[in-house]
């Protein structure tokens, strides 16, 4: 299972974080600091896996953002990378050429999409179309609501 997922900018700013195991807030921030300094310091040519405490960190850099997934010892590293990539592809389809700014200003959208892909640390949907279908349903509902309010 995935223990937590993090999006960190090259400057070390957190853009998204989600823990799937209980972890006190203070430890979360400490972990983010530790993990991001470990990963930001790695050279681009080395592999995308890193042993960290009793876990493995799998990360990938997309433009200025690092996507980091923390998995357990026996989990498949490449699969974690593909899950991350799947998430990125979904974001990309949704925002249309996603960039860091999209995720900064629409961070809540990123959470919606993540919730459709991963829950309790396990993958629940691997079809981009199915994920986006649910998200656009939600969006439509939100819009109707706003419009109804305005008219009302």
């Amino acid at each position, binding site marked *: 299972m995935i223990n937590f997922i993090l999006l960190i900018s090259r400057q070390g700013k957190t853009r998204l974080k989600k823990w799937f195991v*209980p972890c006190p807030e203070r430890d979360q921030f400490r972990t983010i600091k530790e993990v991001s300094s470990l990963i930001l310091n790695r050279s681009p040519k080395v592999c995308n896996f890193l042993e960290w405490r009793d876990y493995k960190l799998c990360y990938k850099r997309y433009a200025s953002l690092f996507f980091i997934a923390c998995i357990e010892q026996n989990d498949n590293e490449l699969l974690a990378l593909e899950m991350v990539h799947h998430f990125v592809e979904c974001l990309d389809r949704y925002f249309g050429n996603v960039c860091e700014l999209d995720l900064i200003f629409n961070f809540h959208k990123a959470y919606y999409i993540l919730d459709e892909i991963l829950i309790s640390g396990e993958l*629940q949907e691997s079809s981009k179309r199915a994920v986006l279908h649910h998200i656009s349903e939600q969006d439509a509902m*939100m819009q109707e609501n706003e419009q109804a309010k305005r008219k009302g």
Partner: protein
Amino acid sequence: MVDAFVPSTKRGLRKFINDVRGCNTLQDEQVRVRKELANIRQKFANAKALKAYDRKKYAWKLVYIYMLGHEVEFGHMEVINLASSKNNSEKLVGYVAMGVLMGHDEDLARLVINTIRSDLVSGSAFAQRLALTFTANVGGHELTQALSADVLRVLYLPESKPSTRRKATLCALSLWRVNQDLIDPSEYLSVVAIPALEQTFEMGLNLAVLGTLKSVARADPMAYQAVYPVVIRLLEKVVLGESVPSTYSYHGVACPLVQVRALEVLALYDFPTDAELRKTLVHILTKVLSCNDDINPQSMNQSNANNAVLVEAINLVIQYGEQVDREMMEKVVAILVKFVRLSDANVKYLGLAGMSKLAQMAQREGLASVLDMIRDHHHTVRQSLEDQDGSIRKRALDLMFSMCDKGNAHEIVGELVEYLKTVSYNLKADTVRKIAILCDRFSDDRPWYVDTILHLIATAGDFVPEDMWHRLVQVVTNNEDTKAYAAAAVYKMMQPSHVHETTIRVGSYLLGEFGYFLVEGNQQSAQDLFDAINQHLDYAGNKTRAMMLHAYAKLVLLYPQLHEDVTLVMDAFRDSSDPELQQRACEYFALAQQDRVRQQAVFEPMPAFPEAQGEEAAETARPNPTPESVKAVDAQVETQVEDLLNLADKSSFTPAPEPELKFGKEPRRVWLANVLCEPKGVLFEDHFVQIGVQLQFQKAAGKLMFFVGNKTGWVLDQALCTVLGNDALEVVAQPLEPAVLQPRAQSRFSVAVTCHKPFADRVPIKVSFQANGQFEFIDVDLPVSVLSFASPCSFPDADFDQRWDAMGDRVQQTTPLDHVGLERIDAVVAKLTALKLAPTLSADKRTLRGATTIQTATVNPKTGKPAVVGVLVRMTCVAGSSSLAVRAVNVAAAVGTLTTVKDVLLVL
């Protein structure tokens, strides 16, 4: 696309984010955030007047602030109110914001239980999905207790949509992690898992179900066995038929995620015995293993996806080991070799990791041909040790370690010692440890062993844990032919004017004990020995000095000509500020005035150490230890700092490791192991108390009497013992009497146990008391295992084998035992007899067979008698190691027996 499709972010929120981004310093950001928090707090103070739009906006602002790393102490109620709103859009914001803001706070979780419950029972699939997602991600005891029934209802409801059901199954998994009785295997399989896995159009549901199975079936593989053929069929459809909807094809690979998950579930079970299944599985594996053969991957992602599946298939083949045919094993080796040689860092990493697993399997099962194939690539592995990437270096080091055996031990150890010169700091300790373990494991050539360890101490002294040189001392003491050699070697090492602290320690010890070999051989004079040690006196630490004084005392007894020098040193330390040194110096000084007979009695040469302790160092030698065991080893190293040479014990002059203190072992495990097969013994001891126990078992019942003794000179009050049983092991405990422990007095309490069904886990006892106003807590395990209720049964070997085979498709648990070899088979037999396993040794003395029945108090409705569970144990030994297999109809009985035997043999 964003503007047309995505509803624009709220203006206020956008502005706030912009402001924060514009802050140049952390202080600026803090000022801006505080201002915003004050604003929101004020708005929320009059929340009723707020419009829905604003409430959502402020909720998002709080989430954003929280994400930046600032504390958010209020607003949770407003967010919860949003989630309870009837309006879907507010509900969505509320749930998602709660998921981020509340983290795993149980108190806050309690406040949303009602909202979640009403959403779960509502007919709205939208609300259901939000509630399930939130519950799954937050989990925890509160939600599990309150919502399990509702979540399961949604999961099992026939009209639940696949998209709801996939969330429900993962939500159930999340709650199951808290309470493992939550999911009933047969119901889950028949209602959810099997129907889902038999179709291939809703692959998302398959993915979620396989993800759930991976965890729940790992805990109890037997209960979920029925799903095995279904998973194979699904895999067949995906891999061979590729009948997967196009939306689930990922860069040209048919749903790699489902393939990996399915393989992971298959890995929970042994190679199938059914011929048809076996054929299909082999077919699938062959196909997967050749997926990268002929095609040129069109993209990075395609090859990644293929490799992800490939790695999982390779793991499975390695797990099956000898059971798959040679051709497939060769294919696996070929793929791993290809991986290791590729320039792609990720693939190389996985190749090295896979090869490490393969080497361990080959060592375990004695597949020489596979080991040879791996060894052909020794050079490549050696090169990877110098890779620029730390992760790859670590994997290469693990592989070097796993592929080492008798034939190439010298070569590999030599290379690792060479590598030590250039190794990066964070791998250094690991490298030292691995070298020491390999040396120890293949230490037939003693001079080589002594040289290597001394070399390690000299070159990487800071990384050499105490028990490593203690082990060296043991080996030297126990082998007559090594003593002179070690003394000469260590003498040479002591020559430089500045050496590592550990060098001084081992030097003092060995020269004190065996220095006389050098003098007798006319290689060195007694004075030389003294000088070699004494030149380091000035800069040595106090603990080291204490060992030096002891060496002097030993030397002076043999060589009276040193009397003057030694007396001078002793005298100087008689007023040392270190109490230990002072006491030693005074005592040695006084002893020198006594007659020689008494002196000789005190300074007897060290007797040989019991070899049982010796090989324990090899315990750390599990090839490629799991991180837990590495941690455990580290912890052991730390606890061992306590001084094995017993210097702290002022009553004794003998610098011997305390006999009870096993090397590299936590004393608790030693105590437990002894009590598990004795009718009485010490269960725990520290500087406050000693806990002893007497055990009596009859059939499915047992009575334990615990004695808690106060070792201190003061009163320990409010003493309390709690033992909680479970549904397998009923426990009735009497309170501790008296609850105030007078100095050097005893209290006792009794515990009655009844076994209702076999169990694998130990029940903890918690002892607490107050010492000097501070509470102390002691956690120990109740020394009751499933074998406590065993009654031995024996039958001829042929009969045994027949029964063994008959149980072939039932639960089997196996474990390698690296430290128990053929040499100590008799001790093993004694231990197994004590465990009531009725062991019989085969004619060639290589196989031990044991059988027993576990008595339970549960009445079998068919016979009207208490149910008994049969357990068969088979141990095969070779020189230096053995492997243990347990078969039983009940998984808990098998696991319980296995862990008990393993724990008991640990202290052999």
